[in-house]
């Protein structure tokens, strides 16, 4: 017979079949599309402050049906001015100094009556990070994933390993997850870390600071109905070591005049236990999808925060979609957070004027438009406006805009949302 030409028609037949079926009935395109990838570039800009440009590329490869590997690289550049903790608009004007930054050179500062410090520090930093993970289906209902990551900045390095398990039960209506990760970070400013609560005129410098982080997470996700999925996570993060920010300072003022008399480097405790509970529910209407999520966060520094998030995906014609996100974040300050210290008083055990540990409210709104280029490629553009206010009205409000472009090559719809701790 003519057909018997000692050649395989397997591939030709598979190609011919693809032409008939608009998509493979299973997500078996893994064979046709060995690497799925996402290319993302984003630009974040605070008015008159910091701007961040980040590029990210991630790949995923499925090895058979039961194993996958992911790789992710990111590169970002941060430039601009950030509040260093010094008070804004001191009552007395005088010569203004600029304190050091990660890329800064060694400098000597003077302090005393009539000398003030610019509350904004200019800096520039570059970060490179990579993450690799490998997941396998151990049994049809149990999946395991291990990961390793590292990141480098001019003055900061971080190495981490982690793993998680997820188990499907009750006819896959319920998924239980558990994960553990350990990170070791090193902070090494160019000039060494300053002694805590020392005056910025003190030129003593110590070695680098190290910190260990252990994060554990447990979660449950439940298919509530055919259109509704709900998810609940609890995570605990324990930080140990050098948790102080070597670039943040706190102003010492004269209680009578309010004028700065000195500026000290801040000091934070050497341990922190952070907890968060995250709840997310996704509901699919005929085509639209709505996500509603809430997070409550608390730690032993006294910081409490709540995040409300509403995300709506409006399906338009031909696979186009419009997504809107509204987020409200409210934070209570850390116990040792102080805008300034009074001169002549005993120094507290810990003190920080870092606005990120302060009394904050952040409101943001985002809009994104996604266009499918073909069955596997989607392009989306996203714009976000973020407004951050210091409730105590000491630090000026920050208005930021974010633009993001994502080019995604994949074949899966992912309904789960990641749970990330607030800053």
């Amino acid at each position, binding site marked *: *017979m*003519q*057909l*018997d*030409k*000692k*050649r*395989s*028609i*397997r591939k*030709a*037949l*598979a*190609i*011919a*079949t693809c*032409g*008939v*079926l*608009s*998509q*493979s*009935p*299973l*997500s*078996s395109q893994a*064979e046709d599309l060995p690497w799925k990838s996402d290319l993302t570039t984003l630009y974040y800009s605070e008015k008159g402050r910091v701007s961040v440009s980040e590029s990210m590329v991630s790949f995923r490869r499925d090895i058979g049906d039961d194993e996958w590997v992911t790789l992710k690289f990111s590169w970002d550049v941060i430039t601009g001015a950030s509040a260093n903790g010094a008070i804004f608009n001191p009552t007395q004007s005088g010569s203004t100094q600029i304190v050091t930054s990660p890329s800064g050179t060694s400098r000597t500062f003077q302090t005393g009556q009539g000398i003030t410090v610019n509350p904004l520090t200019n800096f520039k930093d570059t970060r490179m990070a990579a993450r690799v993970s490998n997941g396998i289906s151990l*049994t*049809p*209902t149990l999946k395991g994933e291990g990961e390793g990551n590292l990141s480098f900045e001019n003055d900061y390095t971080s190495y981490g390993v982690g793993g998680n398990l997820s188990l499907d039960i009750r*006819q*896959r209506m319920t998924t239980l997850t558990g994960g553990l990760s350990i990170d070791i970070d090193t902070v090494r400013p160019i000039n060494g870390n300053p002694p805590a609560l020392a005056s910025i005129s003190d030129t003593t410098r110590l070695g680098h600071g190290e910190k260990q982080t252990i994060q554990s997470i447990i979660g449950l996700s439940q*298919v509530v109905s*055919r*259109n509704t*999925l709900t998810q609940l996570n609890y995570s605990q993060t324990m930080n140990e070591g050098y948790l102080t920010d070597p670039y943040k300072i706190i102003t010492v003022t004269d209680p009578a005049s309010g004028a700065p008399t000195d500026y000290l480097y801040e000091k934070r405790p050497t341990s922190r236990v952070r907890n968060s509970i995250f709840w997310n529910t*996704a509901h*699919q209407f005929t*085509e639209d999808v709505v996500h509603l999520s809430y997070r409550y966060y608390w730690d032993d520094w006294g910081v409490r925060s709540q995040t409300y998030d509403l995300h709506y995906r409006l399906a338009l014609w031909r696979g186009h979609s419009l997504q809107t996100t509204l987020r409200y974040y409210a934070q209570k300050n850390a116990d040792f957070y102080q805008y300034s210290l009074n001169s002549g008083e005993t120094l507290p055990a810990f003190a920080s004027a870092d606005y990120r540990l302060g009394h904050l409210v952040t409101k943001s709104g985002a809009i994104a438009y996604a266009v499918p280029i073909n069955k596997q490629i989607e392009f989306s553009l996203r714009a976000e406006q973020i407004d951050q206010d210091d409730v105590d009205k000491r630090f000026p409000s920050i208005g930021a805009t974010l633009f993001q472009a994502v080019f995604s090559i994949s074949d899966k*719809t992912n*309904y789960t949302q990641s749970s990330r701790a607030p800053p």
Partner: protein
Amino acid sequence: MNELRSALCPNLRSFQLIKDIWVGHFFAMASPCEVFVDHEDLFFAQKLFQMAKDNALRIEQKFSRYRENNIIFQINNADGRRIQVDEETSNLLDFAAACYEMSDGLFDITSGLLRKVWHFDGSDCLPDPHAVKMLLPRIGWEKIKWLRPYLTLPAGMEIDFGGIGKEYAVDKTAEILAQYLSTVAVPPSGVMINYGGDLFALGPRINGAPWHVGIDDPEATGEQIVVQIPFLKGGLATSGDARRCLLKEGIRYGHILNPRTGWPVLNTPRSVTVAAKTCMEAGMFATFAMLQGSEAKSFLEEQGVPFWLM
């Protein structure tokens, strides 16, 4: 253990739970059709069942050669005129053309005319060789002008999708069900489609266990299962001559016809079952293997696909 029999039990109601699996039955494309749904929720199962049935009946309606108000009728009665066909029909014609190429002309959707002379009723009535020969000039895909989306059939020729339609219906149904499952955030598993022995499993059973598919004994169709195939996902199709053949002077004439000669391919296996990524691929491998006659086994071995020969 869930034995899925391609033969139907006549006393089953149209929808019932067999050993924790909902099974929907209907009749389409001249075959008993079943959809197995391994989910507790009856309404959910019914929804999937309805979607499957709608799709199977739609495909039957559109591509059946026995109807007079569809595209196949239009094509076969165009009397030499050029016909513009829709996207789905175009896709199937492209597929048929590719299969014709791959099989060096052995798989040919214009060979249906031979039905006029061959009646595989288990008797010994072979057709008049002259009558067979008279049909040959009206058979052959190469005589057709196919320039997507325009099809020109010489007058007197016919096409039919009998050789691929059922497998296509299975895959198309699987695609529709998978899409639905994804929109309701249910993983694609726990659903098995069986249209007259052409199957597709959307993932394993909900507990992760494989489906068990029985292959009928070619000597005793619908009565005895000779092989049990554990089956996780993908397509599975069987081609066989058990029910459709002629027997004369000790020679068995199976229903697989060589379009070049107009006569059955001899020494074919009694039954070929192939597993592949899709049901269409599985069906084509099984059909191509049958067309190889005694070479079926070496053909399948060469392709490197899982197969069961009897």
